[in-house]
């Protein structure tokens, strides 16, 4: 029987062919936690009493959410995680190394892997053709201790994107448009699978933006077929040998097929306080929305290419008075490349402030928390009330280029006039 990408990837780890709707136990290739979910995972591993890790070289701890920490309680959680890493022998990516999913994309994630992480944006791994999904601390404790988990094989939605993106329109705009179309629960329990010439033209960072936001439509994963871009990315990161071809079968059953004409898309903005509350930037609602903070970074737009797109808009320009420009590189290697390529100068000349690599202000504990009544336009992934640390503030989601244009004008702005 022909299989979807999700069915194929899960079957590879179930030891038998499984179809949507079946329950199965799967072998986990890689399991990880971050500093907001990891301490609870460590407690649960101890409760299980099954040994610290069944596969330490395939287990990782990331200190990225508070990196470095602003609270002694969080710092003490970090102490606990470092102690777990030392005693279990697992990988530790400490303060300043970057966001878990982005670091994994550089160093570990490969086509055909099955990965679980105690972070909802684990689904980002689908950009490289891995089945990757987020779970809670207890599930990850079990995956780490036993090397297995159970799952329901998801139905799949096939998203076909064709046509050439116009200048100033990016993969972020594709995924914001899609979530606006199907809603924040439009893909709940389902696998979002992306195909078509536009998707084939996207680099791995571009695909990463889309896969990371699969969860914002409720999706279990966001999957892409590995191709030449995947091979090129792996080669750039010294892992060419990790490449393998995995294709969805012709005739596989999809619960729904969605077709998007990329050429007709505009830059998109998600309004507070829901990701699916989207408007094209030309919509009248986008006029005269003051911006107090313009924020670049997060796991969704944290690779070099994302900052490069913003820098193209900002080069030789300056953030408007009253608009803070805050930049958080996704990983240490992105940070280095931003320095060597001159991007840091562009951002500093534009009035920007640079955070250490990590999750930054996105989850809301430090490095750019909003004030009461403030608006922030951000290249992050969600804008729920309370996101970025303040339930009395307002977060608008957009592409890095739209964030940059909005910084310049001090209000929501269309990046196309700067390109």
């Amino acid at each position, binding site marked *: 029987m022909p299989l979807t990408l999700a069915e194929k990837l899960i079957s590879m780890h179930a030891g038998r062919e499984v179809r949507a709707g079946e329950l199965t136990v799967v072998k986990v290739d890689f399991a990880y936690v971050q500093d907001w979910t990891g301490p609870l995972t460590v407690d*649960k591993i101890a409760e299980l009493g099954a040994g610290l890790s069944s596969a330490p070289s395939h287990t990782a701890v990331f200190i990225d959410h508070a990196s470095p920490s602003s609270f002694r*309680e969080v710092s003490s959680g970090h102490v606990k995680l470092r102690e777990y890493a030392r005693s279990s022998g697992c990988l530790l990516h400490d303060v300043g190394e970057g966001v878990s999913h982005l670091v994994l994309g550089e160093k570990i994630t490969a086509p055909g892997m099955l990965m679980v992480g105690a972070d909802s944006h684990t689904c980002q791994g689908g950009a490289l053709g891995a089945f990757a999904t987020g779970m809670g601390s207890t599930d990850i404790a079990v995956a780490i201790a036993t090397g297995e988990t159970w799952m329901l094989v998801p139905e799949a939605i096939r998203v076909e994107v064709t046509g050439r993106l116009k200048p100033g329109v990016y993969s972020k705009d594709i995924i914001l448009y899609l979530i606006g179309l199907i809603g924040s629960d439009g893909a709940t329990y389902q696998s979002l699978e992306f195909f078509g010439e536009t998707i084939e033209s996207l680099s791995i960072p571009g695909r990463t933006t889309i896969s990371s936001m699969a969860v914002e439509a409720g999706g279990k994963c966001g999957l892409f077929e590995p191709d030449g871009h995947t091979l090129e990315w792996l080669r750039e990161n010294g892992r060419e040998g990790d490449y393998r071809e995995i294709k969805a079968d012709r005739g596989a059953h999809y619960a729904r097929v969605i077709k998007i004409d990329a050429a007709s898309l505009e830059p998109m903005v998600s309004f507070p306080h829901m990701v699916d509350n989207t408007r094209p930037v030309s919509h009248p609602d986008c006029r005269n929305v003051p911006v107090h903070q313009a924020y670049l970074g997060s796991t969704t737009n944290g690779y070099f290419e994302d900052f490069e797109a913003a820098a193209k808009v900002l080069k030789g320009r300056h953030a408007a008075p009253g608009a803070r420009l805050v930049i958080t590189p996704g990983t240490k290697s992105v940070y280095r490349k931003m320095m060597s390529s001159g991007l840091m100068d562009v951002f500093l000349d534009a009035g920007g402030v640079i955070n250490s690599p990590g999750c930054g202000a996105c989850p809301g504990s430090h490095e750019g928390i909003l004030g009461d009544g403030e608006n922030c336009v951000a290249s992050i992934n969600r804008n729920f009330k*309370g996101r970025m640390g303040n339930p009395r503030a307002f977060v608008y989601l957009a592409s890095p280029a739209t964030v940059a244009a909005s910084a310049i004008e001090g209000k929501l702005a269309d990046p196309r006039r700067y390109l």
Partner: protein
Amino acid sequence: MSGKAWKFGDNISTDLIAAGRYAHLRTNLPELAKHVLEDARDEFRTGVKQGDFVVGGRNFGLGSSREHAPTIIKMAGTSCVAAKSFARIFFRNCINIGLPAVRVDTDRIDDGDELELDLAAGVLRDRTKGMELSFPPMPKVMTDILSAGGLVPYLKKNKGFKLA
């Protein structure tokens, strides 16, 4: 299990349940629990009584994977979360920590209604209205995890997953 209904709307995110600004309390769950659902309905955290029900609309628990969200709902004494639909990770987390999460048409329940959960019968009773709302049966593995009190006790008992 019986108690009073606390009604919430659609799309109650994990940021509303366990806000990011309290992330430093995640290693101190009793302190974090004092802020449960604070940004959704502030009076819940002080008014909730043992056995009460959290009753949401569509897509309850969307957002992050933080297990702290259902954990502090359970610590507040809640006997069950009922909603029209759940976000995937939140639902799985509820079961893993032994907090019943049931899908029913919550539009028919009003705030303050007296509710009773009968897991075995697959029914949520609204005693105020004298009606029964049935919910779809969960996969056996989930029922087993729930009746064991969560995933950790389930695995200690079974030494592995029993899906059939």
